[in-house]
C-alpha cells in the first residue's frame, strides 16, 4: 500500500466551556436530514451530550465506528472528582445504548465532519457552539492508503449482525423482485 497525504480534521472539546445547551445535537441532526435541514431530531445526531447536570457531567461525544457487540467489562474513570463510565467517552454505535443509531431503523450513525459540497468551513456543531466548547483544527498527516467500507456496507453489516445474513439476503432478494 502506498503512503498518501491526508487531512486530519480535529474537533477539540473543552468541557469546561460547555453550557450544556445541546445546540450541537440540534444542528447536526438538521444538517444530516434529507433534504438537508428539513427536520431536526437530537436522537439522530452524530454528536451526543452525556449529560447529568446534578453531577456537573457535560460531555459531548462523537459517533465513531459501528460495533456489533458491547464490551465485556465496563471501567469507570474518576476525573476531577466526577465519575464517568468508559462508555461516556466511547464513540461506538453499540448495542449497549441508544446513542448513534437512527431511532426508527436502528442503523448506525457516524460523524462525517459535515462533508458537504461546497465544503463547510467547519463542522456545523462547531459553528453553532458559541461558547467555544467545540473548536476546529486541521492538520496533515502521511498515512497508508486503505479502502474504507461505504455507508451501505456499514449499514448492511449491522443488519446482518442483528438479523443474520440469510434473512438480509432473502429480504434484499424479495425487495429487488418487487422493483
Amino acid at each position, binding site marked *: 500500500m502506498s503512503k498518501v497525504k491526508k487531512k486530519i480534521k480535529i474537533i477539540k472539546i473543552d468541557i469546561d466551556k460547555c*453550557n*450544556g*445547551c*445541546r*445546540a450541537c445535537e*440540534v*444542528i447536526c441532526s*438538521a444538517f444530516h*436530514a434529507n*433534504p*438537508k*435541514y*428539513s*427536520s*431536526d*431530531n*437530537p*436522537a*439522530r445526531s452524530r454528536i451526543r451530550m452525556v*449529560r*447529568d*447536570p*446534578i*453531577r*456537573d457531567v*457535560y460531555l459531548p461525544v462523537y459517533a465513531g465506528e459501528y460495533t456489533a457487540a458491547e464490551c465485556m467489562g465496563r471501567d469507570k474513570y474518576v476525573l476531577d472528582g466526577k465519575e464517568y463510565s468508559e462508555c461516556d467517552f466511547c464513540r461506538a454505535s453499540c448495542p449497549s445504548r*441508544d446513542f448513534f443509531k437512527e*431511532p426508527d431503523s436502528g442503523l448506525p450513525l457516524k460523524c462525517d465532519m459535515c462533508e458537504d459540497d461546497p465544503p463547510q468551513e467547519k463542522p456545523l456543531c462547531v459553528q*453553532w*457552539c*458559541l*461558547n467555544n466548547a467545540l473548536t476546529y483544527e486541521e492538520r496533515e498527516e502521511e498515512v497508508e492508503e486503505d479502502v474504507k467500507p461505504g455507508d451501505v456496507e456499514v449499514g448492511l453489516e449491522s443488519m446482518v449482525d442483528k438479523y443474520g445474513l440469510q434473512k438480509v439476503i432473502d429480504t434484499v432478494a424479495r425487495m429487488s423482485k418487487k422493483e
Partner: protein
Amino acid sequence: MRYAETGYNLEIDLTRGNIERVATDPKLTELHLGGLGTNAKILWDRVPPEVEPFSSDNLLIFGTGLLTGTPAPGANRTIISTISPQTNLMAYSMMGGFFAPELKHAGYDKVIFRGKSPKLVYIWINNDKVEIRDASHLRGKGTVETAELIKQELNEPNAQVAAIGLAGENRVYTASIEQGRSSSSRLGVGAVMGDKVVKAIVVRGTKDINLAQPAEFIGLCNDVLQYIKVRADNPVPGVMTILQGLGSPQEMLHVDEAWHTQNFMWGNARVRRKDFWNKEIEERWKSVQLDVRKRLISCYNCPMKCGAIITVPGISTYMMKCFSKLTYTMAAFVDDLDFGFKIAQRATEYGVDGFSTPQIMAFAFELKEAGVLTDADFAGCPTDNEGKFYWLLDRIVRREGIGDVLANGVYWAARQIGKGAEAFDHNTIKKHEQLPLKLGMLNPVYFLMYATGEKINITQIEGQFPQSPFPTMEERQAFIKDWIQVPDEKFKQYLLDWELRGDHSNPFYPTVDMSVDIVDWQEKMHYIDDALGVCAGLSSFPLKPPYHIHNYPKIISAAAGIAMDEAKLTQIYNRNRNLIRAINARRGLTRADEKPPEDHWKKRFPELEEKLLDAYYKFKGWDNRGIPTKKSLQELDLAYVAEDLEPRGIIKNE
C-alpha cells in the same frame, strides 16, 4: 404534513385514567400560532368562568411554542396555563429548560390534564407510549430528588422531568413546577398540579420535527446566532450591567450586587438600605458565589448562560437562575449571600415561587412585630433571621399552623388574619406578589405595564424600550443608530426627546399616546414569544435582541410554512391579547383591579393615571372598563367571544 408543530395534543383525563392523542386543527395555528395563544383558546372553549381553580373541571395545560424544538435558538419554552388559585384568573406561567423540546420530539404540542387522579401518580410519556404510573413512593420528595429517582427507576437518563415538591402536593398558592434548571413558578401552577394529584410528568422523545423551508429557515437561524455574537461584543453602554447584554439578567455570572441590594427593598418591600454595599461585603459575596457555582448553564439550544449549577457544601446540588439568590436574602434581612444559596436549595426542592414566597414570609414577620400575629402563632420559631425563615418556609409548604394561612399568599392571608393585616398587603397587584421595588417619580410606561399586564409580573412585560432616559443627546444618538428592532421610526424620536428633567421627563413624557405605543410594542413582543416558545431573554426582554418584529414573520413562515407578515403577526398578537383579556373579564377582572401598589411610586398622578388607562383601553379596542368591544372582537375573528360575553352582560350594548 405539519411543520414546526406536531399537530397532536395529548389529552389526559386523570379521574378516569384515560389517555388520548388528539389531532389539532391547523387553522388554530394560523389564528393563534401556538403556545400561549392556543392554550388560551383551549381555556376559553373548555373552562367556563364558574369553574374554580381546584375544580376537577379546571385544565392544566403544558404547551410548547410553535418554534419550540426547531433549531431556532432559544425556542425551548414550556407555557403552562390554568386558572390560578391565587388570582382566580388565567395563569400563564412559563419555563425554559429542556422539557418542551423533548415533548415535541415525543410527538405532542401540548399535554392537557383534566380531572383529578384518585392517587398520587406520575405521567411517563415515551414517544407513542404514555402511561399513568403510581407515585406513592415519591410523596413528599423534593423536586430535584423526584426527577433523579424517576430517571433511575425508568433507566432513562435522557428523560426530562417536570415535578412538584411538597408545596405543590399541599396546594400552596405559590407552588411551582420545577424542571432541572428551570421552573414555572408564578401564579400557583404547582398547586393546580398538586390538586390534580400529579407528582411529575416525564418525557422522552426521539421523533423528527419538520421544517417547511429548510434552507431559508437555517439561514435565518444563523443570522440570529450571528447577531447574538455581535451583541456579546457590543454591550449597550449607559445602562446598568445586567441590562447591557442579552439573556435574562445575568445574576449567576455577575457578583456585583450594589444595584439590587441598594435599590430594591428589603423585608416586606419596605426598607431601602442605601449604604449596604461595601468592600467587605463585596469580597465575601463574591467568594461565596464563585465557591458554590459549579458551572454556568443554559436552556435547550441557547448559547446564553443564565443559570448555574449550585453546590453548597453539605447540601445537595440544585440549579438556579436569575434573581432568587437575593430574594430570600433580602426579605429575611440577612447580610450573607451564603444564606440565599442555602435556603434556595430547600425552596427548590419544596417547589415554591422564589419571588412570592420570601415576601409572604417577610410579611408574616412584619405582622408579628406589629402584634397582629402573636407569639403563639410562632411557637417554636427561632429568633435569628436565618432560622426564622427556614422555620416558616417549612410551616408554609406543610400548611402547618400559621403556615396554612400564609400558604395562600399575602393577599388571602391578610384577609384571613384580619385585625388590620390588610394594611400590610402593600405590594400585590391582582392578589399577586410583586418585585420589592419602590420608586420616586411615576413612570407612565411602567404604570401601564404594571396595571394592565395579564401575566401580573413586570419582568415578563417590560423590555425593548430603555427603562430611563439617557442623560445626553450623544448617548441617545448612539443608541438609536443601530436600533433595528423598532417597529416604527417614531420610537427613536420618543427616545431622543426623553429627558431626565423638565417638560420632556416623567411623568408627562413620554406622553399618554407615546406611552401606549411603547407598551403595545413591548407587550406585542412578549405575546409573540410566548406563542412561539422563544425565550424572552433573546427577544422581548433585553435591549436590542436578535429576534424582533421584522425577522419574526420570515422565521415563522420558513419554519411552519404559514404565510406571515408584520401586519398579520400583529393581528395574531392582538387576537391572543384580546382572548386572554376576555377570559379574565369573564372571570370578573375589572378596571378597579388594574392598579400598581399605592406605594410603588412616591409621586403619583391620579388624573394622568386615569388618562393613561383610558388611552390604553381605547388603543386596544376596549371600552373604558377594560372590556374588549364587540366590534374589536369581530375584527379579530373572535365574534364567538363577543357572543358569549354579551348575554353575560360583560359586553354592554354599544
